[in-house]
């Protein structure tokens, strides 16, 4: 069903922002209309692919070339808008440095200073070679010798890995929101990205800059809440966009958010300020009341003040306000402080408890679960033969973190330890799909680890640093050349699906990872890539079948022309939750059974400032870059080509550092040298560096050699450290480093 912009304005999801905009735009109403197109232009609906929120796009294409990208008005997530990254999307498509065809290396010596001597090969040769290698290593060394560094999608790619019995698939989520997945499974019944900010009255934000540096959908929600008079409280060592919008901002000591959260639970529990009705009906509070009250008695606001620099009376007052002036919400988001300290698992648990005590889980104004149109995967459409049971050792050591394994996650931060020390030589074959070594703590160590691998394949859109270490590189399509169905999962009070379609035909010889899965599948595990009638699985037919079974139309071609589907249905709050007990679990008996803390316990961050390393080291992702994948986009590169050591004026004066002067940042594992940028917006005991820079691949004509790798001073970890510290959610600890800084 297509709805007009005016209908959309009335929907609950965007009502706050819409009223805000309509008020601001009073007088411009007649100009606020969908674009008109010239006769030689075509407008196609698709979904952004830079971040997972995947805002709907209206792409104007002129003479087969993308002319302009703008938001899709009816989309719940982008709400008719795009961010800076999204607006610059054509820069990825037309990047002259793109990988254009499969290549193989001719220089056996691997290293960033070695010319790989890449020569062009056919897809046929590339696929045959990769398939032979996979078969050889699997037969000789078992499936444990294969390492796939990729997210678990799309479904065809997952099928390929499952059919191989892959043991070692790793992705970056431990650096993002993995602790939240692990914890929410047992506290509320699952990780959700949906925050009903616009109907919330009290927003408690822990961590980095949610408003700018995450998703547009969250920015829309927070601004709508602000417009409706909700109170916003923000804890961050950096004064940023979110601090500017917040009613109260506290320059919290890095890594101490957990103390504040625990003290807030203390106040709410001891003063009985929680949402009685919700807590009695839908949680296990009463069952474990004695344990809960006894446990949190120790975490007084006065205690937390000493650890966090947040005044005790502020903690007490905010806890009371949050509990009584709700609905209150505490979001948790990737790249926030929450996700990246050694104590992040505990913080994810504490934050989850705050939401439960506020009684807003899956309620208006709270964190809720997305209402989605079920889109069947390939396994539902073409049931596979039984998959082999994965047998072998986990190279990242996460077999010692069973709850991480349960959610099929892994660990970037411990991978190098496994490859170099625990199981040297075990990994014979590595397949990187849209990841580079820049994404790992201590990338130089990861490069060393990669050199121990006999055969490496890199599939990417760009010749990244990792591609230079590959034996075969495969050219990937960009999201603007891809076909998919993208359900709304970040603002989904009712189900909505947006199409992803090629706005231009795939360029050069670029292919999708789904296509690669089928082609490798045919060669290695053919039984898994046939339809019941015995033909090879055809991706186009599969997509048609998904469209039909999800009720989106009669074919993908038909849905492409419509572009967006919204299902009208009321929002019915959950009364049972997908936890083992069916209730929201404050006390988690399953954690206790595994020997973990059933209630969140104070733990300090892994490393504390010392005489040798007196400063906290913080990293962040700038608003206009996405991880380490956008620095070569011509538009984004021009807006922010490099990074700097951001320090406070107080610290700069103490150390005699001038604006722009080169400085050396040193941690126990590494050193970086870069220019200083002096600000008044950062705690004087912190040094902050943007992530994503320091690409070395000379084939990236813009990004190469610009800036430094923030992660060169971030220690990688061992799984034993995580186990000892109670970090059973496997947070990567990328914010834990402490450093020294000196002028050069």
């Amino acid at each position: 069903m297509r709805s007009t912009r005016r209908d959309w304005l009335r929907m609950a999801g965007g009502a706050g922002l819409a009223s805000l905009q309509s008020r601001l735009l009073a007088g411009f109403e007649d100009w606020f209309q969908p674009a008109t197109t010239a006769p030689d232009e075509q407008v196609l609906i698709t979904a952004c692919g830079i971040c997972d929120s995947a805002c709907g796009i209206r792409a104007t294409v002129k003479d087969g070339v993308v002319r302009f990208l703008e938001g899709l008005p009816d989309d719940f997530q982008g709400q008719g808008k795009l961010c800076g990254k999204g607006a610059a999307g054509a820069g990825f498509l037309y990047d002259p440095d793109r990988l254009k065809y499969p290549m193989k290396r001719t220089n056996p010596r691997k290293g960033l200073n070695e010319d790989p001597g890449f020569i062009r090969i056919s897809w046929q040769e590339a696929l045959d070679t990769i398939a032979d290698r996979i078969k050889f290593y699997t037969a000789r060394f078992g499936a444990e010798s294969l390492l796939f560094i990729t997210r678990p999608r799309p479904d065809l790619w997952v099928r390929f890995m499952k059919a191989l019995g892959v043991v070692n698939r790793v992705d970056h989520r431990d650096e993002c929101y993995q602790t939240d997945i692990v914890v929410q499974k047992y506290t509320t019944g699952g990780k959700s990205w949906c925050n009903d900010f616009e109907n919330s009255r009290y927003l408690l934000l822990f961590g980095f800059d949610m408003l700018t540096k995450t998703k547009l959908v969250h920015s829309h929600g927070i601004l709508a809440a602000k417009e409706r008079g909700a109170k916003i409280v923000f804890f961050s060592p950096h004064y940023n966009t979110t601090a500017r919008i917040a009613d109260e901002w506290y320059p919290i000591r890095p890594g101490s958010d957990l103390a504040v959260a625990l003290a807030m639970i203390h106040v709410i529990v001891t003063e009985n300020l929680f949402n009685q009705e919700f807590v009695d009906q839908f949680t296990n509070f009463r069952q474990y009341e004695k344990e809960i009250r006894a446990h949190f008695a120790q975490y007084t606001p006065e205690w937390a003040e000493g650890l966090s620099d947040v005044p005790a009376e502020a903690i007490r007052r905010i806890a009371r306000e949050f509990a009584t002036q709700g609905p209150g919400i505490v979001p948790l988001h990737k790249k926030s402080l929450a996700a990246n300290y050694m104590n992040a698992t505990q913080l994810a648990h504490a934050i989850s408890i705050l939401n439960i005590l506020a009684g807003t889980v899956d309620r208006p104004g709270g964190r809720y679960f997305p209402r989605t149109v079920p889109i069947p995967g390939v396994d539902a459409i073409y049931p596979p033969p039984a998959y082999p049971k994965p047998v072998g050792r986990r190279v990242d050591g996460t077999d010692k973190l069973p709850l991480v394994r349960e959610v099929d996650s892994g660990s970037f931060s411990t991978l190098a330890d496994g490859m170099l020390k625990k199981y040297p030589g075990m990994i014979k074959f590595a397949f990187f799909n849209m990841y580079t070594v820049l994404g790992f703590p201590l990338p130089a160590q990861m490069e060393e680890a990669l050199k121990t691998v006999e055969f490496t394949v890199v599939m990417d859109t760009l010749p990244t640093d990792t591609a230079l270490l590959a034996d075969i590189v495969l050219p990937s399509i960009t999201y603007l050349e891809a076909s998919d169905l993208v359900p709304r999962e970040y603002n989904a009070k009712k189900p909505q699906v947006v199409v992803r379609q090629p706005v231009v035909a795939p360029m050069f010889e670029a292919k999708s990872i789904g296509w690669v899965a089928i082609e490798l599948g045919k060669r290695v595990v053919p039984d898994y890539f046939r339809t019941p009638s015995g033909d090879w699985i055809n991706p186009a037919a599969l997509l048609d079948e998904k469209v039909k079974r999800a009720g989106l139309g009669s074919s993908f071609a038909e849905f492409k022309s419509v572009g967006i589907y919204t299902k009208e249905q009321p929002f019915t709050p959950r009364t049972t939750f997908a936890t083992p007990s069916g209730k929201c679990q404050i006390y988690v008996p399953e954690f206790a059974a595994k020997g973990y803390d059933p209630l969140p316990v104070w733990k300090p961050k892994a490393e504390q400032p010392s005489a040798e390393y007196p400063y906290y080291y913080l990293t962040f992702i700038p608003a206009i870059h996405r991880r380490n994948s956008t620095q070569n986009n011509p538009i984004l590169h021009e807006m922010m080509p490099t990074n700097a050591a951001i320090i406070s004026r107080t610290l700069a004066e103490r150390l005699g550092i001038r604006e722009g002067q080169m400085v050396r940042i040193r941690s126990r594992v590494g050193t970086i040298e870069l220019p200083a940028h002096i600000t008044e917006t950062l705690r004087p005991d912190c040094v902050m560096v943007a992530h994503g820079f320091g690409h070395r691949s000379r084939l990236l004509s813009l990004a190469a050699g610009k800036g430094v790798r923030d992660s060169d001073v971030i220690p990688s970890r061992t799984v034993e450290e995580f186990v000892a510290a109670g970090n059973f959610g496997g947070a990567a600890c990328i914010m834990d480093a402490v450093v020294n800084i000196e002028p050069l």
Partner: protein
Amino acid sequence: MPGPYGWLFDPRLCIECRACEAACKQWNSVPVGVNVRYRVVRIREYGSWPNVSTVPVSSACNHCENALCARACPVKAYVRRADGIVLLDSSRCVGCGFCDQFCPYGAPQMNRRSRRMEKCTMCADRIDRGLQPACASICPTGALTWGEWEKIRDRGVASISGDPTPNTTRPRIRYVHAP
């Protein structure tokens, strides 16, 4: 809508995503790497830690009522359309840079490659098609809006702390909620 037109900017709503900058580059095919950016977002800092505040400002050519750039140009490369939009015909530019010296907003910029000045057109081509300028049309939060100057001129204030005086050039921009 006959013009003149102007910008209205509300720093409170700006989330510093810089979609306006990116959309400007994309729509106008502004060359990259030659030091030309028609629209730029800058963050101004005030105060000192921890009593600090920031104000983001998205700025482009303000298509001033008294366009000093046009007056300074010795080769008359600047023209003002009937609707008030100030356009620069780069093909006539000799690269003397006088316009840059007179513009208080840094709007005309020297293309390092062509050695000619370039400047924001207010997306006159889009306006002629009944569209908003790319920057304002994409702004996710409504921080940057665009419209008839008649409806903007009395809103908010003419300048914010750190701006040059608006009295001489009479820029067609107003700021809501100036700090």
